[in-house]
């Protein structure tokens, strides 16, 4: 019995610590363990794009997708959003359609039009000439002022490929990374024409409207090959090659879905959810105590521990909470209650059968176990399938549901059982029989 009491003391302290962790990290706005709220609760915009891979060779698709993700991430950052999420998704083979998708979550953004405009459609690569003007007197002919850039008509459409090479660099014997551009035949002609007409000028390379490299034309370049030498690090050069390749091999994207939730709706949903959660918990706990007396009190305690643990797990993983996730949480709480009900009903039956209270608790648990096991396992398996096959809203439900059922599985067999064993005496008299009974009848009749 001492053993059980020590366990209970440890469990109670751990529960309090977890509850404190959940509460304090939520009170601190800078904590990294605050609840991550989905866009439906926190407000924000979600955009789902379809990437058209029909012209991309199969082997390069995942590269193309990750380059696309990189481009969109850059654009999102330019848009100025806190904690944006850009993720790619490849539709599962089971649904029969192979489709590459790009999902952009913009928390706090409600202006869909501006967001869509900022993200644009396809990453673009352009070659532009710097427009300069010679200022004033012949004596100062050398000084020029840069005014801006004009399009040359040469774009990523004409680029056949870009590759990384290491040339003899200026830096103390080290090979400097260079980016080699290969144009297709039309591009080669255009490039030769531009370079021959504008020797000495700057031909800037723009990716998504931002100049990423501004080489100067040294001489006319025939043959459709160009080298960009800059002060690249190897990593920068490699990124540039990737961007050029995938700016050049456009993966067109089209907007498929968009949704925005205003901040007021989200805030209302959260506060209503919290109120419903607290009131629901109190009512369920009161019902359990009224019906099951002492075990009811214990199950209320075990449920409180269960909730503290679940919330802590949700925070630490972290699981993004959505309306469907909260639904999953509520159902899993229902399952946790059910495990307790099963055990108590069984205990009561054993008491009626003339067992001592302690025996009754022991047998009640072991008899209830197969039902709890089979019920929980089928639910866990179902939840895993839902997560595997489901769309994001179903996955939000399934993830919390599986976690909740797992935790309930563990807490039902450890917490409630040990709590009861820690206080129920070996030989119970009338009062104990009353406390372990239930409903309106005395357990002995």
């Amino acid at each position, binding site marked *: 019995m001492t053993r059980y009491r020590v366990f209970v003391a440890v469990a109670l302290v751990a529960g309090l610590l977890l509850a404190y962790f959940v509460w304090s990290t939520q009170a601190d706005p800078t904590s990294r363990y605050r609840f991550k709220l989905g866009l439906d609760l926190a407000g924000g915009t979600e955009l789902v794009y379809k990437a058209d891979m029909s012209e991309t060779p199969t082997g390069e698709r995942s590269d193309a997708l990750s380059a696309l993700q990189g481009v969109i991430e850059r654009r999102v950052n330019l848009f100025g959003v806190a904690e944006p999420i850009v993720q790619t998704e490849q539709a599962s083979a089971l649904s029969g359609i192979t489709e590459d998708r790009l999902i952009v979550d913009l928390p706090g953004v409600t202006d869909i039009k501006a967001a869509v405009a900022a993200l644009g459609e396809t990453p673009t690569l352009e070659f532009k000439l710097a427009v300069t003007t010679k200022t004033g007197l012949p004596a100062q002919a050398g000084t020029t002022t840069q005014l801006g850039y004009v399009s040359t008509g040469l774009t990523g459409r004409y680029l056949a490929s870009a590759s990384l090479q290491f040339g003899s660099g200026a830096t103390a014997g080290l090979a400097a990374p260079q980016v080699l551009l290969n144009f297709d035949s039309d591009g080669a002609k255009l490039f030769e024409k531009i370079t021959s007409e504008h020797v000495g000028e700057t031909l800037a390379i723009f990716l998504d409207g931002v100049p990423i490299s501004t080489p100067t034309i040294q001489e006319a370049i025939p043959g459709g090959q160009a080298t960009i030498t800059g002060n690249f690090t190897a990593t920068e050069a490699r990124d540039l090659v990737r961007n050029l390749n995938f700016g050049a091999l456009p993966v067109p994207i089209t907007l498929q879905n968009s949704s925005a939730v205003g901040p007021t709706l989200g805030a209302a949903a959260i506060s209503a959810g919290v109120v419903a959660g607290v009131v629901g918990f109190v009512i369920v706990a009161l019902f359990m105590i009224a019906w099951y007396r002492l075990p009811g009190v214990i199950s209320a305690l075990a449920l409180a521990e269960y909730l503290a643990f679940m919330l802590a797990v949700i925070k630490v993983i972290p699981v993004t909470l959505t309306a469907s996730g909260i639904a999953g949480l509520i159902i899993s709480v229902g*399952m946790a209650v059910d495990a307790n009900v099963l055990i108590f009903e069984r205990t009561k039956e054993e008491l009626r059968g003339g067992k001592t209270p302690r025996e009754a608790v022991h047998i009640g648990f072991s008899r209830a176990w197969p*039902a709890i096991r089979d019920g929980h396992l089928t639910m866990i398996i179902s939840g895993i399938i839902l997560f595997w096959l489901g769309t994001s809203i179903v996955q939000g439900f399934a993830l919390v549901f599986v976690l909740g059922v797992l935790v309930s599985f563990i807490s039902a067999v450890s917490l409630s059982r040990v709590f009861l064993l820690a206080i129920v005496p070996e030989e119970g008299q009338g009062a104990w029989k009353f406390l372990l009974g239930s409903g309106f009848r005395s357990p002995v009749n």
Partner: protein
Amino acid sequence: MYVIHHRTLFFWLTGLLLAAAIGAILVWGLPLGIDFTGGSLMQVRYDGERPALADIEKQISVVHEGVVSVRTVGTQEISIRARTMTPAEHEGILAAISVDAPSGSASSPQVTELAYTSVGPALGSQFTNKALWAIGAVMLVIVLYIAFAFRKVSKPVPSWGYGLTVVAMLAIDIIVPAGFYAAYAHVTGAEVDSLFIVALLALLGYCVNDVIVIFDRIREHLNKNEKEGIRESFEDTIGKSINETMTRSINTALTVALALIVLIFLGAPATRNFALVMLVGVVAGTFSSICRSAPLLIPLANWFAKK
């Protein structure tokens, strides 16, 4: 033994309930929301007085012809449903309803867009596919798992018979709340959204558990009878098992129902329909576990006895 003795009555009741539910689905249909069909949905709140619905419709029809419906929600809000809109069309509607209504029922309305969702048609049908796949796969796995968990009890019903019975029950447990929702949607104009699917999935989980508890008791009695050489009719075993688990079934349903009722009255509007479907499903599911699932084993046992 009440349930067992009157099982024919309960089978008839089930049949009636099922017929009513299927009838409701066939007559009124389940109005699929934009998650399934594709389309756009705007939720807008008027900060001041809301203009008359007809005026709002007139304002919108000028700028966009693909609007399916405009509904009032509460006293201050409206929802606009349309075929999939481009961002520009969306802006156009928002601008159109922000100016004075033609009949001047409200001046310079201040509108706030609460939520906007737009789903492409392709993704919509894909969602339906995935949801159906998921429900089918879950049911299959349940049959397999139960056949495995009950492998030691194969008389008078083979272990996969329990699995099949559970799945037959689950089909009914899902059709009944779906039928309720068809009637509910017919009255209130609610639509089938992805949370409705989530509710059905959650109900699957709940009802499986509910039936398993009763079946577990039957399994326990069968094992015990065999070990101790007790002869007992299958009907008696089932009747005893149902009676012994009845309190538990009702109490668990009651606690879950309490939590759901709180969610309906105090929870977010977004989860209200979800909670309502769940509530109907939990009540119907509990009734079905007690009165139908285990009694269904009896005709099944008779059938196997004849073979």
